[in-house]
């Protein structure tokens, strides 16, 4: 898995939403989540990302500590300024999850915006499409 999710510098335009998602797409996380009828959310990050004050591991830790998030499922790309996580929609609604994550990351001067949600294999949906 580490091979697929390497820690290389940003070397692409990364402009498209799907490119941002690709930077934090981890097939093992997605497969496990969907098998358990969990969902995977992909967020854009803005603010003090990649400034040295917020390391990738620190942001991952914040995500993993958010209620409803599957432990160990958070992936962060500082280069693409993107975060992904898997969560159990039975334990928490997406709105609650987003609110909690926003509050936690706001303390680190980082804002989040949802890009896509995956609740079925190979389908990246906007929030309104769900």
């Amino acid at each position, binding site marked *: 898995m580490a*091979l*697929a999710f390497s820690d*290389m510098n940003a070397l692409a*335009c990364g402009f498209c939403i799907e490119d941002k*998602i690709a930077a934090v797409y981890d*097939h*093992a996380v*997605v497969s496990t989540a969907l098998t358990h009828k969990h969902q995977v959310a992909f967020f854009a990050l803005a603010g003090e990302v990649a400034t040295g004050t917020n390391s990738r591991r620190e942001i991952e830790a914040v995500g993993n500590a958010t209620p409803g998030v599957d432990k160990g499922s958070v992936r962060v790309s500082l280069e693409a300024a993107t975060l992904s996580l898997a969560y159990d929609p039975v334990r928490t609604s997406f709105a609650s999850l987003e609110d909690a994550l926003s509050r936690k990351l706001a303390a680190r001067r980082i804002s989040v915006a949802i890009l896509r949600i995956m609740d079925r294999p*190979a389908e990246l949906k906007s929030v309104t499409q769900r």
Partner: protein
Amino acid sequence: MRMKALTSWVFMAIVLSACGRNASTPTVDRYDISKMDLKPTPAVLSTERHTGPFAIGASLNMTAELKPLDPSPVKEIRLDTTHKVIDIAPGIKFSAWTFGDQVPGPTVRARVGDKIRFSMTNRSDETVPGIQVMQAPMMHSMDFHAAMVSPQDKYRSVAPGQTISFEFTLNYPGVFMYHCGTPMILEHIASGMYGAVIVEPREGYPTKASREYVVIQSEFYAKPDPDKRKIDGAPLYVLDGDSLRKATPNYTVFNGSHNGMVNNPLPAKTGERVRLFVLNVGPSKTSSFHVVGTIFDRVWMDGNPDNQFRGMQTVLLGSSNSAIVEFLIPEDGSYIMVDHHFANASQGAIGLVSTSAKPLAKDLEHHNMAATASPTDPDSVMGKQAFESKCLACHSIGQGKKVGPDLSGVTSRRSDDWLSRWLKSPDKMLQTDADAKAMLKEYNNVPMPNQNLSDAEITQYVKYFHWVDAQPAGKATATENH
């Protein structure tokens, strides 16, 4: 009267002048933007997964030898993405990502005005029959340099199991690259996700060629798998992110294979005109493409005959640059395609256009190029790389003495223990070891500098020297690694 005659002459001169212009200037602007198709339809995403072959299309060419142009004005093309293990050099099994299940991906051949109707399923989550998937599935995309479309619509990344379909019209002639554009693009290209689209001018090429081949140059940045996995008993190699970012490849190849077209030359006959469609994929090195023994009669930069040079020896191609080169085969022989940056040639960017199906070994020794046999053992590979980048200023392999000794045969002259101690601290050895002292005297008192090598690096050097000495005489050489 004289005035009338003068007027007639002026009129005639104008007419002749105009005729002359008409004869040399095209009356039709082939680049008339108003006549180009710049209204592509939106891409379609679906979860309908392709099954069956990974590459489909009458316009696809799976090998270097190109088929004639498919006359259909609409080219239906399927190029699915896969993850598989490929052979980039003897014994070097590399964990690659592909279009159409091969590296390079199939070459598309079409014509200006043709419509490409493209679809691609990300099948990186499928196990290729007979070969275990070595890399985790991931998102991929397709970026056609031949297209004029919105990247945000057509070139978006798709997840495993997704299919993207879109179409576009070919507006310019050329030899264009296609590649995966998903971040990190450098990783995706270096892992094998690239190919060529040949777009012929609407009216065809101005010359008639007897043979047409595609030659795609690219780099590989391979390191032994940290998990020491093996394929059929041979070590698996994976992408080396460090050397990738430093742009220090260990294999630079034509058509995906180290010295591949040496063992299987591109055939030609004496007197024939050969047309090569050359694309330098990179991702980070330029190519000085040259064919030993002939001169390029025509060079069409980026594959467009309007960008013509005549009588060229070499064509310089940056990453994603291309050219069509044409040359005559003057007499029987093996004409050697090389990247004239010889560091690249020594890494495998070499091939033959030959009038003989099996060229003689002596044909291959030109510039010592085919003599660059490569080790396959990971330590020896690393040792070779280190030697070629650090030691060639003072040493050679089989080329005689320089500032220091020729290291061919060194493992029969010295024990492994002696070599290891010497590489570890030559300064200490020069104080205590009689052989070291004698060598210093023989080489004009120029001491071997202490390179501060680690034990692992020393092991790699020693293994490389053993590999050199296990080769047939003169077979192993070392070329400076820039």
